[in-house]
């Protein structure tokens, strides 16, 4: 049956103070190189998954740091852990480990993944 009535669209704005950065904290404690990313996009450019799907490690990185976890949770599963991104990173971020830790954190703290 067709549903009629009003809907409230969810805002796109990042509400920094309302978001939880527990997942990002979990990663950065265990992989400190997570902090030095400068969002250059080298990882995303070399990524095979990114060339065929809408997967961008750079984007996931920033979303985690802002606590926009919901949009990362499913997406981060696409990574095949090939590690090419780690090879090209100019800041020496262990990107592969970042992905592994993010997946771990999402499993451990499902509540924070919202």
């Amino acid at each position, binding site marked *: 049956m067709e549903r009629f009535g009003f809907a409230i669209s969810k805002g796109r704005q*990042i509400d*920094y103070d309302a978001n939880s950065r527990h997942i990002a904290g979990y990663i950065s404690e265990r992989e400190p190189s997570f902090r030095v990313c400068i969002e250059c996009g080298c990882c995303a450019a070399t990524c095979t998954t990114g060339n065929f799907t809408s997967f961008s490690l*750079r*984007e996931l990185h*920033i979303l985690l740091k802002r606590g*926009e976890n919901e949009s990362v949770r499913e997406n981060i599963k696409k990574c095949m852990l090939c590690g090419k991104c780690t090879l090209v990173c100019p800041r020496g971020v262990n990107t592969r480990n970042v992905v592994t830790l993010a997946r771990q954190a999402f499993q451990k703290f499902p509540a924070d993944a919202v």
Partner: protein
Amino acid sequence: MEKHVVVIGGGVAGMEAAGHLQKSGFRVSLFEKEEKPGGHLNDWYKLFPDRRRSSEVKEYLDKITSEDGIKIITGSIIDKIVSDKNQFRISDKDGKEYSADAVIIATGFDLFKSERKEEYGYGIYDNVITSADLEKMFRSGSIELADGRIPETVGIVHCVGSRDEKVGNLYCSKLCCVTAVKQAIEIREHLPSSKVFCFYMDMRMGGAYYEELYREAQEEWGVNFIRGKVSEVSEAINNKLVIKSEDTLAGKPLKMQVDMLVLMAGMEMSEGGLKLSESSGLNKGNNRFFSPADHHFGSNKSNIKGIFYAGTCTMPMNITETISHARAAVSDVIDYLKDSKA
């Protein structure tokens, strides 16, 4: 006869030039509008990138300008230079005249007046301050909000008055990025439990060890960087400041609250320099700084023979560059007076 060179402006460039002119055998008069020389250096706490105390540089400049043969005239505003047969007549605001064989202009820069960017609320909200105000807090040893509380979250806005057509400044002031990084580290150092967020358009860390300092800020001090210019600031009912910006890397608008907001005021041609340019026929560029005769091999020469520039009256420069530029101006003065028949 000993040649007399007048240096206008007693900041870093003027003091360095005066010291080197004296070493080269000239009689020097150094004019400073304030009660003591040192310029902006007197207001800074520590310098980037190595965070040495600014007072150390001041001590060095005081030492080289305390030699015999250098006369420092403070509290004097020079408002006109007239060129007359290889001689210069320099007059101050009170009509007092001096003569010189050559002139170095080192009138420096003024900080952008941040209240002109009304949307950031400087002068409206108590806890919106400038980078210069923060240096004063560091010097006094306490970083406090207007009501005496300690800030837990601090936002830093880059490019205030720089790269902004709305205020008529198309240029990059070049030093605010590294100042922001330095100050972010210092806030974390003074207040270890604080969180610091830098809102930037581009991180322009083009100087020796600037990029390394940026990395240190991320790695060791946990400073957060958000790419996006703050569009507006308002005060919430809890006295916190609400910042709106786009997180351009996440591709989403972002809002957050901070206790204190620091505006990285850019550099502008000084008011004194502007007046001197009008009164004495010295060319300015589109950016309003003095326009050197040639950007590549005449950056100290003005459009008037015998008048030279040193330091930030020509463009934004850091202290290292200012000192080199001042020494180069002295080298031009030596060449000029050697050839001159005066």
